[in-house]
């Protein structure tokens, strides 16, 4: 009998699952110029052995699409992408009138965005946890699947909801009704909008504090980054890029499909073209008669690009500067890479030929795709090089440069210079750096001159630090264990005898987070030195070594009881992530790093006098909720090849200047827009951000 089984031919799993989508959005399908390229296919890797199977919804390890439409009081049935008829034709054909196609497209685009991040980050994408979940439930630190509601809203809006860990997409009636291509516009059918919102969710999963608005740049960065990802993903649709480059004669600077975002949405909301253009703020600044602040108005409603970053406060507009800078860097890189192709082509064509040869367009499209991919990876990698809280645009530039230097030591194509130049042109400055040369923008190595005490543990402070730290490293688990199954299945019962690597990875991270937290919490001889290094408070309250008063950080009772049965109080802090990244560079270089992010919060008050009192320990103020939480923290990089602590990127929690800046930002001294004092404002930061644009 056993022989019979071998008679059945084994068909291996296909490598890719192909799903049909709109290349841009439904509008491009009804315009002759773009219809030929608008139907395209996204290829997603077939679920691997260690992933759950794709279920109706679609639902997989990462996403769950649930199609509830509350404003219509309706549900739509889930699509089953494994149905044979759908497998045979790459999923449902593009159609606005079929909600199941909407589910398919939103799933395909979101998955593609996720895969792009994973490739650049060198690890799996994980979703943020539920802050309201009770302690010790697995969902508190990670959510298993991001939810997607393709028809959750009835308005010109789509957003990521951090509190629900869900993407909500809206739909609305086209204002021009029946004259336009269709009477309804669905945001879940726009590649750009889906990619944009998915990026918000990924970013939140990486840096849970990034959704807090602590300065003008923080939410603007979220918006800009999401736009950048959506834009750069355009260039992986090779046939589209080819078509567009042929039309623009190889230029990427003309407004078009490739550098515009959400064309149909833009039209439906009364714009002449796309919702946003990458190079919107690139043109020569338009001078207007000094009308800036308060409610001054220009009656004509014309497009007047903001003149300066320093005068722009709205998050999308401000983010536009960052988008323009990065896109400009990308275009510069593309132009640099293709200059020789143009020269070669020019020498062999007739002088009056005004189109590019098909071969040249193919090569240009390939170069554009490659450059976009590299820039996208540079941008994503840099996320691991940002401070965990209170990010500024300039610091993101430093992160990009440092991350790239770590992986690609030399820079033969001058990518970094292209970035620096593009940022400088947009007026994005880097305070605290002596020059804008790439090498002076690198994040500094840990400065051990102030902490000579580490010398005790080794020959010099540097070795001492390594010795001290290796004690922690030795206890960490640096990969998932491949032992018997039950070891890794604690965090998910759905495995059913299979190993789900994603959940195993979550288990490893959670364990490491806990160990790191314990290690820093434990009293050690080097706590004073660590305080200086990471810019956080670690010494116990009653520790005799404490010199500076504790700046009213909430506390944690911990440690061993002394003879009186009292526990010593240690400042509270969080270890947000402890993730292992393996990355490969273009020349086969590899990095293997452990990235730890820790944060600490401190009570902040709108009134500087209250602040002083609270910092001095005024019991009345400590008894009530503070006006806001001021956060500090550090991102620590450890090279896992030799265990050396290579870098600490920190925001000091004791930095009173930074605190004052955040207070000014909160009370609206800078922008004239105060941040809400009610808690509910923070529930849906992106919904408000997007709506207030209207």
């Amino acid at each position, binding site marked *: 009998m056993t022989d019979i089984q071998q008679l059945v031919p084994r068909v291996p799993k296909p490598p890719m699952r192909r799903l049909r989508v709109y290349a841009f959005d439904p509008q491009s399908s009804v315009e002759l110029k773009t219809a030929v390229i608008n139907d395209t296919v996204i290829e997603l890797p077939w679920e691997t052995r260690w992933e759950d199977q794709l279920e*109706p919804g679609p639902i997989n390890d990462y996403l769950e699409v649930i199609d509830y439409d509350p404003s219509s009081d309706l549900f739509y049935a*889930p699509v089953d992408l494994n149905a044979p008829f759908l497998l045979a034709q790459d999923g449902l054909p593009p159609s606005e009138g079929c909600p199941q196609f909407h589910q398919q497209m939103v799933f395909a685009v979101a998955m593609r965005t996720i895969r792009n991040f994973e490739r650049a980050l060198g690890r799996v994408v994980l979703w943020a946890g539920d802050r309201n979940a009770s302690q010790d439930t697995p969902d508190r630190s990670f959510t298993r699947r991001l939810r997607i509601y393709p028809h*959750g809203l*009835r308005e010109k809006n789509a957003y990521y909801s951090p509190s629900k860990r869900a993407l909500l997409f809206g739909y*609305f009636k086209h204002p021009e009704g029946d004259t336009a291509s269709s009477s309804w516009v669905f945001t879940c059918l726009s590649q750009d909008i889906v990619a944009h919102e998915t990026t918000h969710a990924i970013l939140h999963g990486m840096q849970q504090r990034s959704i807090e608005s602590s300065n003008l740049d923080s939410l603007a960065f979220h918006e800009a980054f999401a736009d950048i990802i959506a834009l750069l993903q355009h260039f992986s649709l090779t046939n589209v890029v080819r078509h567009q480059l042929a039309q623009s004669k190889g230029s990427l600077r003309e407004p078009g499909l490739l550098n515009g975002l959400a064309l149909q949405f833009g039209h439906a909301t009364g714009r002449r073209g796309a919702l946003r253009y990458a190079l919107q703020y690139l043109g020569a600044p338009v001078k207007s008669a000094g009308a800036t602040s*308060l409610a001054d108005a220009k009656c004509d409603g014309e497009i007047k690009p903001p003149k300066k970053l320093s005068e722009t406060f709205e998050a999308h507009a401000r983010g536009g500067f960052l988008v323009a800078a990065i896109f400009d860097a990308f275009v510069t890189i593309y132009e640099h890479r293709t200059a020789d192709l143009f020269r070669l082509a020019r020498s062999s064509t007739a002088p009056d030929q005004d189109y590019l040869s098909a071969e040249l367009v193919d090569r240009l499209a390939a170069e554009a795709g490659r450059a976009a991919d590299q820039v996208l990876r540079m941008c994503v990698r840099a996320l691991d090089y940002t401070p965990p809280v209170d990010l500024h645009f300039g610091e993101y530039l430093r992160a990009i440069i440092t991350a790239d230097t770590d992986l690609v030591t030399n820079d033969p194509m001058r990518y970094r210079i292209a970035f620096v130049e593009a940022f400088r042109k947009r007026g994005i400055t880097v305070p605290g750096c002596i020059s804008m040369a790439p090498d002076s923008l690198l994040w500094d190595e840990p400065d051990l001159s102030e902490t000579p005490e580490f010398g005790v543990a080794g020959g010099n402070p540097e070795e001492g630090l390594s010795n001290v730290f290796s004690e922690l490293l030795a206890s960490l688990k640096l990969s998932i264990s491949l032992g018997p199954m039950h070891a890794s299945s604690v965090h998910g019962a759905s495995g059913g005898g299979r190993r789900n690597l994603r959940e195993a990875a979550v288990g490893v991270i959670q364990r490491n987070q806990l160990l790191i937290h314990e290690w820093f919490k434990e009293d050690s001889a080097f706590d004073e030195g660590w305080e200086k290094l990471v810019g956080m408070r670690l010494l116990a309250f009653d520790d005799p070594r404490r010199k500076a008063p504790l700046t009213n950080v909430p506390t944690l009772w911990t440690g061993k009881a002394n003879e009186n049965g009292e526990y010593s109080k240690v400042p509270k802090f969080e270890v947000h992530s402890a993730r292992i990244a393996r990355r490969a560079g273009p020349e086969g270089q590899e990095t293997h790093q452990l990235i730890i992010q820790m944060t600490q919060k401190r009570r902040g008050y709108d009134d500087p006098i209250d602040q002083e009192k609270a910092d001095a320990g005024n019991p009345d103020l400590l008894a009530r909720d503070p006006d806001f939480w001021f956060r500090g923290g550090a991102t620590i990089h450890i090279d896992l090849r030799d265990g050396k602590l290579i870098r600490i990127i920190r925001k000091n929690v004791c930095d009173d200047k930074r605190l004052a800046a955040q207070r000014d930002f909160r009370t609206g001294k800078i922008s004239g827009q105060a941040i809400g004092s009610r808690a509910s404002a923070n529930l849906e930061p992106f919904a408000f951000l997007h709506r207030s644009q209207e």
Partner: protein
Amino acid sequence: MTRQKKVGPANATGQIIVRMYRALGAQGREYAGYLGDCFLIRVLDGDKPPAHILIDFGILMGSAQAEERMRQIATDIVKTTGGTFAADGSVVKKGSLDLLVITHEHWDHISGFSQAQDIIFGGLTINKLWMAWTEDDNDDFANQLRQDRDKRGVALAALSEIIQRAAESPTPSPFAADRQVALSGLDAFLGPLVASSGAEPASSALAAAQVKAKRLKGRDIMEKVKAEALSKEFLSPGQVVAAPGTLKAFVLGPPRKWDRLKKDKPSSGPAKETYLDNRAFEDILFRLVDGEPHDPDNDLPFASRSHRIRTDQVRAADNASSAIDVCTDNGVLRWLNEHYCSGTDRDGRDQSRRTIDSDWLGAAGPLALQLDSDTNNTSLVLAFELPDGTFMLFPGDAQVGNWLSWHDQNYKDETRELSATQILGRVRFYKVGHHGSDNATIKEKGLDLMTHRELVAAISTDEAFGKQQGAKGWQMPNPLLKEAILAATKGRTFRNDDALNADYTPFKQSLNSTDLYLEYTVI
């Protein structure tokens, strides 16, 4: 160096005193200010009987002890205008109000006429009423504007009530939301709804059926005031009219141009003005108000009937944990029930906080905001000229478009023709627009032109209370504007939420502070 104190001829001929009511005296004190407008101008001139002008009489809906406070103020108005009360509170002699100005139909400007109607109408003779042309029943354009506003106002006020009811009801409803979040608290300006016919039965099962017969109480108030006043006049921009106490009123707004009326914010984005119409949402909202059933062809995005699975069907489906086959109708219902309605997933993880039943109501926010701005822009804007040629500016809650329109015409009386710039240059008392919010005082063509050395500003606000409104909190005043006004007035700005013992030295004795009002002697 000592500067000559102003004891000029102005003082000899009379005094002009502006009283900004705040009524902090009522018991309990759950508040530190007063968000709403109520200004009484007194013109004293030797032995002649004093003249009295009342500008607006309201407090924001939701303010603590609103009724007690408004009644306290009403009593003071009657007494100040010469009325007297008997010991039991009944009116012995009516006060005489020379002029009542109502800037616009917002609850925080008119609520008192409802909360203290017996005192104000029973104790006061209103000799003359001024309203903006937008309230004139004989003006076609005004009627059209009002109907449009009414429709949306009733819809939003109704939505506000429905949300409140849904929040109290134990059964799930697509309208269960945080009212403050959904409507940004702006329904507080609209005021409550009342049954319009009076024959409405008190209880009705269906919310929609109830709404149809309702209208805003604010509209009733406007009608009532029009009926009570002995004479009334609807003013248009460009007019210069005589006001009691030998003052002259220059009418600056509201504009008659549509684009000015619709303009609430500085243009900044492309195509800003066309961005706000959300037909899909409004359709549903209006149908709700009119009590009509859903119109599937118009309201629903997908044509085919097979795509429509009603929510109640899904909620009723059982979600047995056995394998679910989505190829069957029953399977689909169970699948949806398991994935959306059940509070936990298959591994028992809590999913209950991830539902989106009410998130779509957030779309009402922009709608409420636009209606609010549209109404604010119908504010009657008056600049009162004083005997010495200076002005007092009362812009109501005028927003950007209204402000800009002041410069669209010149202002002529028998002898002179003044431009808006000239008038603004002579403003010495400025009632800050819309409680100090950012789009109700413009810079270049507004505050920057108010260059009078003695400029004083009054802000009728309760900053702390404002911050509790809406999801984000309102900024009343806006911090940038606050600084600009403090600079323009060299610190002579007084507010309803000033402490009782606030330091008013920069005003040199001309400011009188009580817990009922702040009173500034203009000249």
